[in-house]
């Protein structure tokens, strides 16, 4: 009989730290994350013992080694595995710019208080994208190396300039005859003007719709005024038509949280379910365009939004436990980043930032912006994120302009103060446009940053529930796999 090799007892001073970050929790626990965002909670005394390298508990040492937080001297495999995971998380960078936004008009027949653009009245056709601009924009989009290209039309109300939408779609399909990329087309619209002709076009060219639904009737119509005060009814009628003609999943909806939404998250979620939407994005109002000039009465702070989000998520967990499947979209994006090596490619949660390399915006007037928010800033006179002009600047000019590269480099979370040592860094992203708008530079001061505080609230909620609630844990794993 051979001698038994004993169970390993390595520990204490033998352990070496791999790159790790931590965050203390109010209840005394400490969150540890490794350099690719795998996480582990330890209690206070365990953290003390770890930091002084006098841990002896074999089960805890096993978990620390499994999560690539520590290693034994000379171990190479953990480093190799971390490298593979880190590389996987950044793979998307090589296929830059898959999202191309076309602002085909600034005109709109709605007059929403939170609207992020300087909308124009219906008569002002000078704010429509011309055929020449549309063609130049499509050809620019095809300069991007991404194997997938998503063309998203917005405005104003893009249905007010369908000739430009048709031109872009048909031109893109023509060029793609030789390019062979995977194309997707989405019209972001309030749908009030949807007609049979638009539907037939969408059917022929596989176009999807993204619309706005703010919740119950009174809230939606107060947020989204239009002549006749019938925004919600028109949107829902159009949603029904799209589903009938094109299929249930060809239309999705987004909501914007206003001060009037606070305290009504359950009603809002119910209104999504009543109308057949299984995905809801509890989205805060953004600080751009008209929304930036909201009166104090309409404004709300991060804590109020966090309460709104938390209450909404509690309700969503409850619904799922009762067998009603409903997904909170933003949480699902964050969970994919927390629990997998995939990068969901959501432009607000990537680092390097998503500006330019994640999305490009072609304005009605031929100006090219690094993001939709950058384009909105320009409408109020700040041209910081204007990369160039179609017809004058080449793709190389746009993508190597200082207006793009400087904020990308300066906002990179791997080096930004307070981001680079934040335990949530891998889950978060760089938002240079937000910080430029609110703090005057691409970085901002994180303790004062609403972006930082809002995201931390989300990360903390998700990790708390993931750890404490087996049902939530399984649901979150399913969301992360989407």
């Amino acid at each position, binding site marked *: 009989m051979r001698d038994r090799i004993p169970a390993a007892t390595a520990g204490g001073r033998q352990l070496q730290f791999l790159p790790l970050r931590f965050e203390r929790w109010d209840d005394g626990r400490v969150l540890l994350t490794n350099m690719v965002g795998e996480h582990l909670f330890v209690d206070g005394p365990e953290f003390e013992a770890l930091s002084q390298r006098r841990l002896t508990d074999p089960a805890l040492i096993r978990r620390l080694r499994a999560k690539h937080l520590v290693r034994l001297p000379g171990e190479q*495999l953990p480093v190799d595995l971390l490298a593979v995971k880190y590389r996987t998380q950044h793979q998307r960078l090589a296929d830059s710019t898959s999202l191309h936004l076309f602002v085909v008009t600034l005109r709109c027949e709605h007059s929403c208080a939170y609207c992020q653009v300087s909308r124009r009245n219906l008569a002002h056709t000078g704010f429509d994208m011309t055929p020449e601009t549309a063609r130049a924009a499509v050809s620019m989009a095809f300069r991007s190396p991404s194997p997938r290209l998503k063309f998203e039309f917005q405005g104003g109300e893009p249905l007010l300039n369908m000739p430009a939408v048709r031109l872009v779609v048909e031109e893109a399909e023509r060029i793609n005859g030789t390019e062979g990329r995977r194309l997707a087309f989405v019209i972001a619209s309030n749908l009030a003007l949807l007609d049979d002709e638009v539907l037939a076009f969408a059917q022929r060219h596989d176009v999807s719709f993204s619309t706005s639904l703010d919740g119950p009737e009174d809230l939606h119509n107060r947020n989204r005024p239009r002549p006749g005060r019938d925004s919600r009814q028109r949107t829902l009628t159009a949603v029904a038509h799209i589903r009938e003609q094109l299929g249930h999943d060809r239309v999705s909806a987004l909501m914007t949280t206003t001060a009037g939404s606070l305290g009504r998250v359950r009603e809002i979620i119910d209104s999504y379910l009543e109308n057949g939407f299984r995905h809801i994005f509890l989205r805060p109002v953004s600080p751009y365009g008209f929304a930036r000039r909201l009166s104090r009465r309409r404004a709300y702070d991060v804590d109020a939004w966090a309460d709104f989000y938390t209450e909404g998520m509690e309700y969503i967990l409850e619904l799922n436990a009762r067998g009603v499947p409903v997904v909170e979209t933003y949480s699902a994006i964050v969970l994919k980043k927390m629990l997998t090596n995939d990068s969901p490619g959501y432009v607000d949660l990537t680092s390097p930032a998503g500006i330019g390399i994640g999305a490009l915006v072609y304005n009605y007037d031929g100006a090219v912006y690094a993001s939709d928010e950058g384009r909105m800033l320009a409408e109020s006179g700040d041209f910081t994120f204007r990369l160039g002009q179609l017809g004058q600047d080449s793709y190389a000019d746009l993508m190597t302009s200082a207006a793009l590269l400087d904020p990308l480099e300066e906002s990179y979370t791997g080096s930004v103060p307070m981001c680079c040592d934040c335990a949530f860094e891998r889950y978060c992203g760089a938002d240079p446009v937000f910080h430029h708008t609110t703090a005057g530079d691409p970085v901002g001061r994180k303790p004062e940053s609403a972006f930082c505080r809002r995201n931390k609230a989300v990360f903390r909620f998700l990790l708390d529930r993931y750890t404490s609630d087996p049902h939530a844990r399984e649901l979150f794993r399913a969301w992360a796999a989407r």
Partner: protein
Amino acid sequence: MIALRGRARSASLDGPLRRELWRLVDGPARQPDEATLGDGPAGLRVRHAHHDAAPRGNEIVLPPHLGHLGAGDIIAVSPTGDRVEVMWRPRSRHNSILLTERCDNYCLMCSQPPKRHDDSRLLDRAGELIRMLPADTPELGLTGGEPTVYGDGLLALLRLIHSELPGTEVHLLSNGRRFADAGFTADYARAGNPRLMAGIPLFGPEPALHDFVVQASGAFDQTVTGILRLGELRQRVEIRVVLQKHTAPAVVEIAEFIARNLPFVEKVALMGLEVTGLARANLDDVWVDPFDYRAELAEAALLLKHARVRTQIYNHQLCLLDHRVRRMAVRSISDWKNEHIPACAGCAVREECGGFFVSSRHRRSAHIRPLPSPSADGHHA
């Protein structure tokens, strides 16, 4: 249970047999590797035990427990004709070929305890067997011991299988350590068989646990490096996790490790303990009642499923599984080991259940109970 070896009741040979492997046929043998069951001209005649005629030239009489043998089965007969081993049963879906009993791991619960002596004749015999198999053979397993101890010898066998049996699914059970050798793995990949899959065990999410379970230091690093290399070369890998006293508490961590570090594997098998070999010798050190880890097993299986890794549960009775993962259970126990016990009486899902290894007589869960039919079990009691 079906016996797979035995002593001939009697043998009458003109001289020592010149070949070892024989395919049984009804009626006269037409090939030199065929043995006739019953009467007829042949290099070897094989009779069942109930035959009362006295043995004549070149004839063996099987023991009663090998009465199940029939045409198409392939047996190995010792030169003197007194030992018979069943090598292949075309009616079984669980045919595998033992290539060696040597291994560089010494797993606490090994069902086939390693031996040291040179048994490379098993590899030669495997090559001979493969040449005798019908071209439409659906599946073939290669087991050990550790088949990669042969190095190039194994690769030659794999190339032979690919050319002789191009339509056969081939499952190679290996501890995976040899695949850390980049040159060996490149040669393995060059065999180019898209129906070849390596089944490799992983018993921990880091070296301490895995190396303890397999009783070999450095094994985890080699095995995981091997899996990574196979993945880089687009080779098909199944990871096998045997649940025993030391691994069961870590099964969620193991699943997380696989999902996060080895997500390219084609399949994960979460396997119950077979109480035989070293598992029986070390019973108190490896036994855990599957009832006690059912929550962790369910969480691990669902975690892998969400990570889009195809996951199956082997060797677990359905009544010991969380209802959410019962449909991931496979009737995996080989037909020659499968049986049920009195506690199963009245169970509505017996037919879907894998039952027990015969070896589980030595220890089985204290929580075996009949299940109602799935329709009556609508609320997943």
